């Protein structure tokens, strides 16, 4: 049995894990807040994308015209609109979080945990508990042959999308003045404030960006994982693990950790299938035992 397909699959899986963890990493780095609602925003992004892509049976001319768009266009629109809406919800949560800043970290944890429950129950109340499916553009549906194995076109698209998203976020943080402000905010928020930058607005923006990224990850993952109200749990746990494994605050640490997790899960799935889920935790324990700050724990967003 050839090892190569499983190595490729592991890297692909790692890119998807990285996409899931990006927003979580951004919020932890800049705001030092562990957003336990990350998974719920991930799920909310899926459901809002579902509405954007299939907006019901309304008879208005605008809606009819919108429905006549191809699935590909509606998918592209969903990738923009849904994260924007979820970002709005994220802003509301950030406003609620403000009273917890400077206090015991448990307050923030509890608040975001409570928000996660509320969002999940809200989804259940509005959309029900049954499985939903996101329509897919024809261009990324189906499979293709590589050697004598079949691969999913959509998975390839998702991996390329994840790689592009990682690169764009890095460029944004590294090459734009907004990125510089975010990094400075992560490093020394008091100094940023002293320089006349509105710290509250910065945090609001970063939080919205972080949950928007969670929503994007949700939309991209929905054809692979399926859409159900509690799907967020499947996202928040690996996201948290990856951030700690990579080293809190390290952009490339998180990406590398995600790739490692992907490889471990992929290879263990192929060669010791009963260990496939546990393998990421074993990797985590092994690394943290010898390096409690994670792989790149000393670095911060400033060092990307």
């Amino acid at each position: 049995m050839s090892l190569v397909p499983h190595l490729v699959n592991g890297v692909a899986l790692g890119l998807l894990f990285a996409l899931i963890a990006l927003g979580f990493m951004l919020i932890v780095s800049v705001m030092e807040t562990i957003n336990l609602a990350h998974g719920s925003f991930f799920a909310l992004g899926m459901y809002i994308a579902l509405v954007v892509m299939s907006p019901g049976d309304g008879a208005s001319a605008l809606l009819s015209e919108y429905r006549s768009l191809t699935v590909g266009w509606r998918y592209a629109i969903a990738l923009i609109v849904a994260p924007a809406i979820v970002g709005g919800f994220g802003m509301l949560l950030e406003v609620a979080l403000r009273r917890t800043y400077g206090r015991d970290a448990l307050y923030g944890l509890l608040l975001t945990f409570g928000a996660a429950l509320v969002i999940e129950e809200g989804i259940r109340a509005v959309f029900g508990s049954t499985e939903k499916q996101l329509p897919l553009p024809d261009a990324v549906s189906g499979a293709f042959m590589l050697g004598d194995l079949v691969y999913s076109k959509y998975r390839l698209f998702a991996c390329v999308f994840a790689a592009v998203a990682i690169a764009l976020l890095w460029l944004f943080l590294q090459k734009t003045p907004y990125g510089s402000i975010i990094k400075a905010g992560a490093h020394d928020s008091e100094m940023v404030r002293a320089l006349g930058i509105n710290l509250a607005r910065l945090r609001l923006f970063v939080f919205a960006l972080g949950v928007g990224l969670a929503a994007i990850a949700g939309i991209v993952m929905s054809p692979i994982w399926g859409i159900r109200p509690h799907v967020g749990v499947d996202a928040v746990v690996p996201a948290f693990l990856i951030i700690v494994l990579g080293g809190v605050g390290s952009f490339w640490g998180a990406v590398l950790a995600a790739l490692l997790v992907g490889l471990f899960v992929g290879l263990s799935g192929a060669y010791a299938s009963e260990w496939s889920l546990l393998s990421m935790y074993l990797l985590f324990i092994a690394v943290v035992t010898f390096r409690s700050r994670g792989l790149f724990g000393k670095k911060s967003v400033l060092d990307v």
Partner: protein
Amino acid sequence: MTQAAKGDGERAVANGDDPRGRACSDKPSSPRDPARRTLLGAVAVGLGGATFFGPWKTNHVWAQAAQKKPLVIGLTMDASGQYAASGGEERLGAMMAIKEFNDKGGVLGRRIETLHMDTETTPATGSRVAERMITRNEAAFLIGGLHSGVANAISQVAQKYGCVYFNTNSSSPTESGKDCHRVKFVWDGNGTNFAEAIVKNAIKSSGKNWILLTNDYVWGHNTSKATRTLVEANGGKIVDELMIPQNTRDFSSYLIKLQQIKPEVVAAAVGGDDIKALRQQVVQLGLQKRMAWINNQQDWPDVYGLGPEQIFGVFGTNWYWMLDLPGVKEFVATYQKVYPGMAIQVPGNVYYNGYVATRELLRCVEEAGTTANIAVIKKLEGRKMSARDRMQTYDAWIDAATHQCQQTIYMATYNDQPKVKDDIFKILTQSEPKDVMDADAPKACKLETYEATPTYET
């Protein structure tokens, strides 16, 4: 994440107004209740007579009975975790049967209340919930089980106290085999029943080289074990068995391995959210066309809402809403009337099992004229139920040796010519119960004696 009611009781009178149950007090009467005040006064005056009346528990039962204490049924369904969707449907089924009895005045003149706690698809939670329902909430009976590990955990606690427990939907052969109990009754077909119904034909039609996809817990293990035995007995070969941990969301490495091994048949014992994700990912690769797929049992909530392509392969069920049998149409109409606007618009096997099991329990209580556990158990053991009454093709019965309901087992596939919306199954075969019985269960099952089972009555 969990539902709001997670880990907390939610007690309701089943009246059909609210399918999720209506919260109310745990206490059946308030301290201002005159009858209760009189009683308390009498107890206060006659403190010295406490010994005469016996232990406090006995006094309590006597006092409550005098007030026609509501009959509390503990509903132990998952509301979160892998089987959350099925847990909700199963609960609605039980509530429907209870509503029908309450509409007639309850059972033995007592109104029926339900108390639901989320068992979280976690055995430890199942134990905790069962313990609490029996010791603190005085549940007369416990009903509900999707995950065989959870059902086993609940039944151990139930047996300790003697509380009758209905495992309505979990299907590990061990539930009516080595993990059977005098107080436990198993209502769904088990992995062996479904394997008996399909393996022989599948070897003839699809090939001898099989691979097993096994959910890595008690149901998956024992269902795959039964499949392996039958495949090998019929001249087939198991070329590999891949364990799938619960809550697996990415099956890519398994699917690559399947392509490398190239089996003729893939026999999956995968359930809940896992099978939904697996089906989606198989279709993305088109693997449903490259090898034959068998899913031992396909629960309705796990397939409802999936597209036609994703309902591939052959799978087992013990009931379908479009069976052309007496009573089915009316049963479906009642579901739609009582639970309008549900995401699942027609009932499936999980709802059905919840309903018929609860209905049978309440009938037995009425026939026994008591809620005393041994009397109810004796009514259930060996009980015969007509096909017409159960809306199945053949008569069913409860095996006195294993406490499993022996019933019709259907094999189905996707219906590409649906008569109406949601007519997504095409029934391929219907097996008589005697032809698909789990022959090993009576050997493995050692029911506790009546004497070793504590008496229990509330």
